[in-house]
């Protein structure tokens, strides 16, 4: 049995089913509200949900016996900006630690399982912030990547503010952007003034110094914990896209879902294909068996691609803004329609249940 939490423009949907078969909707919460992200914390059994009410602002809710609103997700009252959205929730390596990333490019940390949060001041007050710039989705901190077993090491990614690394639990931050070539700015722009539009960031858990990145025009790999990056986009039909997924069992693996271009954010050539590498990005293999193969122009957003399990039993799931949800129970070799006719899908997380 696998459980999916699907954040949509019109609420949270919980689905459950056997891998390889259509899933049933088992629950719906926050009807009508944009649910940015939802995550199950196996340590506390809490469900953590980010909701952006267009009227009442962004909130993070956690469910135990009932829904409770998390506290502390706010920017300094004397500042120029208010918190606009909470894009992502991530579980920390230390007991009870939960992170939340939001717009404008801010990171929050909870040490009590998501009930109360504090703003990370080191990142919020970083001098480079003046050069960060919002993309179409705002100035979003969308990726929070922990280092297995080391709670002091963390990587985050901001669109458009680049990759930021800490080795001291978030007290100080340094950029990890060497080797990234943005096409949307003049080539002679000073490097410290470039707002780098990272779309997604993931770490190979069994080789944690290796990370993969989907960029705004580019796919990259780092083998030095994010200090520098090498292009691995050769062989893809397009280097534009949003989400990224990895097989935890294989540090050479990555999956991307290319979209045509930044000016045409749909699946290329009217067909839906996930691209897989098993050699660290040296080559890519299209994986489209079972996915719409013609007249299909889907948009898959950055949080809408999830993996659970590993190896041959790796399960992959992604949702489209057109409301379709697709899955693979065999590491991408074959695909099927998990659910249809959902509202526009903003995010997917997956948990394999015993």
């Amino acid at each position: 049995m696998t459980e999916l939490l699907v954040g949509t423009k019109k609420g949270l949907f919980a689905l459950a089913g056997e891998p390889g078969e259509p899933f049933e909707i088992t629950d719906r919460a926050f009807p009508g509200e944009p649910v940015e992200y939802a995550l199950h914390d196996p340590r506390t059994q809490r469900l953590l949900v980010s909701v952006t009410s267009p009227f009442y602002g962004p909130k993070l809710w956690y469910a135990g016996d009932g829904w409770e609103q998390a506290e502390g997700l706010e920017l300094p009252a004397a500042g120029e900006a208010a918190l606009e959205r909470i894009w992502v929730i991530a579980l920390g390596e230390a007991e009870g630690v939960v992170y939340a990333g939001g717009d404008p490019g801010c990171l929050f940390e909870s040490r009590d399982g998501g009930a109360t949060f504090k703003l990370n001041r080191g990142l919020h007050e970083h001098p480079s912030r003046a050069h960060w710039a919002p993309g179409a989705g705002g100035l979003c901190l969308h990726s929070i990547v922990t280092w297995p077993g080391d709670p002091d090491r963390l990587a985050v990614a901001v669109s458009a503010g680049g990759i930021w690394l800490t080795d001291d639990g978030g007290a100080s931050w340094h950029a990890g952007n060497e080797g990234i070539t943005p096409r949307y700015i003049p080539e002679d722009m000073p490097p410290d003034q470039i707002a780098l539009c990272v779309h997604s960031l993931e770490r190979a858990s069994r080789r944690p110094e290796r990370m993969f990145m989907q960029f705004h025009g580019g796919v990259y790999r780092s083998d030095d914990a994010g200090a520098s990056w090498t292009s691995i986009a050769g062989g893809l039909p397009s280097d534009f896209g949003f989400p990224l997924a990895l097989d935890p069992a294989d540090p050479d693996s990555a999956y991307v879902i290319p979209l045509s271009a930044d000016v045409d954010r749909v699946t290329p050539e009217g067909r839906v294909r996930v691209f897989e590498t098993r050699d660290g990005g040296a080559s890519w293999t299209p994986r489209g068996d079972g996915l719409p193969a013609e007249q299909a122009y889907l948009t898959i957003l950055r949080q809408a691609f999830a993996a659970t399990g590993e190896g041959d039993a790796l399960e992959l799931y992604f949702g489209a803004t057109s409301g379709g949800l697709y899955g693979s129970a065999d590491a991408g070799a074959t695909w099927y329609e998990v659910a249809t006719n959902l509202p526009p899908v903003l995010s997917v997380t997956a948990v394999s249940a015993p």
Partner: protein
Amino acid sequence: MAVVRLRGPLKQLAGGAEHALEGTTVNDVLAALETANPAMKGWVLDERGVLRRHINVFVNGEPAAQDTALEADDRVDVLPALSGGR
């Protein structure tokens, strides 16, 4: 005192639809409402104290702003704006 009227989740958070509050401006009574009902913090005013973009306030049926002056017995309606629907 002005009377602030709430609907929907705001009514639930504040434990009632009508609240008599002291203040000489709309901002005064919204801040007083938040102080009296901490669960409302961040719902009508953001963390800077700015009225949220898609919340409308009316005083005696007329569109109002945060700095709109109030007199005793004025009625303040706090409503989700049409512009927030999507």
